[in-house]
């Protein structure tokens, strides 16, 4: 019991702290790959700190919803982090919300963000909101399908249980999971405003999506939003680990020691993941916004294929 709760708290702490670092790391790798001088790994932290100290500037016609949104978005990302097993799968909170609820959480965050973006009534805001929702309604089913494929294998929709079962099995490659993994990767790129769907490193571009929604935010609100974005990336990474490379995640009845072992493994996974992400981003060019649906349709297709493969081969 104690272990479980420490595990839970540890997870939260790790997520909160590691998320900005992951972002920083990705940016660093990108810079290197593009032969630029890399920004510091800690840049996101400095950034947040600076923003927290500033006075917030709200648009004249900003409604309470606009001010509440950052907290809700941040909150739901944190709760999501509490569900996903990154160190150990003995998470009390994962019983409260399973993978479907997790998808629901992401949807909540997305919806609040979109509503807040529409609140001011700027052209960019509404445009961003529309595109975000468009990406969302294509990515969400794909993500669900990916999770279903995994949960059909482990006959459970709770991520903790899934990773548990996958760990306990000996090193077997599930063809269905292979498909799912590809789909998941595509979804991850789209959902986290990454190239080729969106460009995280831009402002004032007519093709922007995620940034367009944040234009009116400043100071702490902006900081929360960005931190939430970082958390989202981290969460996705953690989901990926839990589903496809769960090895090293401490089992349900693991003690503190295993958790401590799990930590460095997680770090390694994150480093690799970040590097790979940066690589993909560097190698691929940004798509036109109307290619995005096709991109995500492919993801959806792969996910469904994965499921069918599972049903067909029973593996």
């Amino acid at each position, binding site marked *: 019991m104690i272990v479980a709760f420490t595990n839970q708290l540890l997870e939260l702490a790790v997520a909160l702290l590691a998320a900005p670092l992951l972002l920083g790391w990705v940016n660093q790798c990108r810079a290197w790959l593009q032969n630029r001088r890399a920004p510091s790994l800690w840049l996101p932290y400095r950034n947040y700190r600076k923003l927290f100290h500033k006075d917030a500037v709200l648009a004249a016609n*900003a409604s309470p919803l606009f001010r509440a949104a950052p907290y809700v978005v941040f909150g739901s990302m944190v709760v999501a982090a509490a569900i996903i097993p990154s160190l150990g799968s003995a998470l009390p909170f994962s019983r409260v919300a399973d993978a479907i609820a997790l998808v629901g959480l992401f949807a909540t965050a997305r919806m609040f963000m979109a509503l807040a973006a*529409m609140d001011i009534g700027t052209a960019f805001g509404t445009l961003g909101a*529309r595109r975000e929702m468009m990406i969302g309604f294509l990515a*969400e089913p794909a993500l669900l399908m990916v999770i279903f494929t995994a949960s*059909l294998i482990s006959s459970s929709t709770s991520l903790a249980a899934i990773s548990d079962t996958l760990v306990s099995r000996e090193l077997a490659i599930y063809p269905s999971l292979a498909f799912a993994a590809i789909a998941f990767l595509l979804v991850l790129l789209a959902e986290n405003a990454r190239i080729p769907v969106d460009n995280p490193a831009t402002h004032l571009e007519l093709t922007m999506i995620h940034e367009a929604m944040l234009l009116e935010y400043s100071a702490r609100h902006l900081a929360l939003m960005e931190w939430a974005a970082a958390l989202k990336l981290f969460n996705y990474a953690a989901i990926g680990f839990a589903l496809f490379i769960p090895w090293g995640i401490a089992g349900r009845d693991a003690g503190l020691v295993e958790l401590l072992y799990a930590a460095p493994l997680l770090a390694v996974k994150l480093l690799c993941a970040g590097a790979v992400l940066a690589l993909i981003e560097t190698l691929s060019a940004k798509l036109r916004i109307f290619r995005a649906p096709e991109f995500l349709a492919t993801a959806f297709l792969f996910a469904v294929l994965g499921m069918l493969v599972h049903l067909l081969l029973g593996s």
Partner: protein
Amino acid sequence: MPWSTWPGYSPIDATLVLAGVWLLLGVAGLTAARNTAFVARIVFPLGALVGLMMLGNAIAGIVAPVGARELLLGLPDMPFHVRQDALSCVFLALLGGGSFGISLFASGYFREGPGAAPGLLGFQYHVFLASMAGVLIADDAYAFMVAWEVMALSSYFLVVTQHKVPAIQRAGFLYLLIAHVGALGILLSFGVLQQGSSLTFEAMRATSRPAVWASIAYFLALFGCGAKAGLLPLHAWLPEAHPAAPSPVSALMSGVMLKMAVYATLRFSLDLIGGPLWWWGLATLVLGLGTALFGVVFAAVQTDMKRLLAWSSIENLGIAFTGVGLTLLFRGFGLDALAAIALLATLYHCLNHACFKSLLFLATGSVLHATGERNFGKLGGLIHHMPWVAGLALVGTLAIAGLPPLNGFVAEWLLLQVFLFTASVPQPFIDMLVPLGAALLALVAALSAYVMVKFYGVVFLGLPREADLEQARDAGVPERLGLGWLALACVLLGVLPVPVLRYLQVVSAQLLGTTLGGRLDSWWLLSPISAERASYGPVFFLVGLVLVVVITAAVMRRLYRAGERRAAAWDCGFGRLDARMQDTAEGFGQPIRRMFGPLFEIHRTVPSPTDRAPVYAVRIEDPLWNRLYRPLGRLVLWLADLVSTLQRGRVSSYLLYSFLTLIALLILVL
């Protein structure tokens, strides 16, 4: 339930009395047709009260033994039979709860209601309520048909309240026509089901019939109920009729009446016909999913807020019928435990939809009163002028978008869980095809979130698109009470699913003979199959979310005492911000139009470059009009023209007809 154990208390009698009171209230309103104050202050609030009692009675009644009565009314050999079992109770609860909120709202709404005599409206309104109660307790074919048709008729008269608008007349006609045709289908189904000349449900239950006839009966019934529920391809009336009606009526029709179709389908398939075959389930499932997708896609491209909600109702009914389909599928395969979950999910979704759809329709009613506008293009920024309505509508919006921890999510969650189980169906292909249904369901849910962002964002957020929106005033107290009640229901249903399911599973106990039993023991954790299979604890989910938000906010306050100030929107330094720059409803529909192009018939008018006063317009039509309805109409007219050549007005040709008839008959008897 304390009062369910009172001596002499019988739910069925109580229901009859309450329905009777509704009728009396209606008549009372009719006697004082022009007396607005009386109708608004007495009739509607009392009606609301009766609704509340109906709710209480249904909750109490579900644990009471099933009661049946024979009334004095009816046909000589076939008096009206009424009966109230668990299924009736659930939907009576839905009727009562929904009508409570709606009637409260209406008591404020009709105060400055549209032209027609408020008393007349009150009459039709309460007859409508009573007839729905009648549908739910009817226990023989005749009583059912009467209640069913009175329901259609009274709502028709409510729809055409503003009959001077030709479009509304057309809508009303279409509505009544399709309703009547559907009713004929149901009648035919009863005819197939009848036993000897006995048309009581009792007799129908008692007998089992060959699969062919059972199937015919089921699909006839499905046709009839589909016409009422707006299933493809009989949905055409719905987006016309619901916007035409006054908002409380739209709410009642969309939130409550459509559920009667679900009730009837369940009644037919699980109770009257009994022993459903798995492929009925499959057919219903496919139909439901198709309808859901069609509905949500069309909802996304609407430019009239009530039409948008109407299309979203089609979507939600599609989801409900998906649930029905799953129930029948599992039942057909004898997997009753799963069938039970599917059934509960269906019922849950009906309750949910009754809450949030009524809530949203009423909200549009308030907006309509405040601004006189239904067109998205002329709304916006109302959250500043109508904080109450906006706030409560937000709850409905989030709920209908299926976001945790509100009620929409629970049903969705249950349905997805059930879908994941179709892999255990002992039928090749089905076990593979059906999980794809899960994918479709997920897509629909996500799309509905898109639709709802469009709805809420364009109406309540942003800058007002018209100058006179500044004058918009918030809704009055009765309206707020009505809205508040429904919003509360959304939250409670979302946060406390287990008690609700405990209540609902009496139905599965009666219809399927199974319950979730011990899996509903813990009051906070919902795990319909098994703890490790899947679990969902909305209470703590909510607590967790709130906790994080509060802590974050507190930290912000404590550590960083940064203030805040107001300024003009930055807008990338663009400066002159004006309402016309916002995205329009059409703009929001654009990606959908692109992606689901084949589903629409799009008529564009694009101006020429040299056009002095350029007009750009897009009209989106339901393809079924040109593919199904218009050809059908043409066919009938063609036949009519064909026969009308018989009547040429010439005496001698008429004489010839008689002569030939005579000869023919003579040959016949020869």
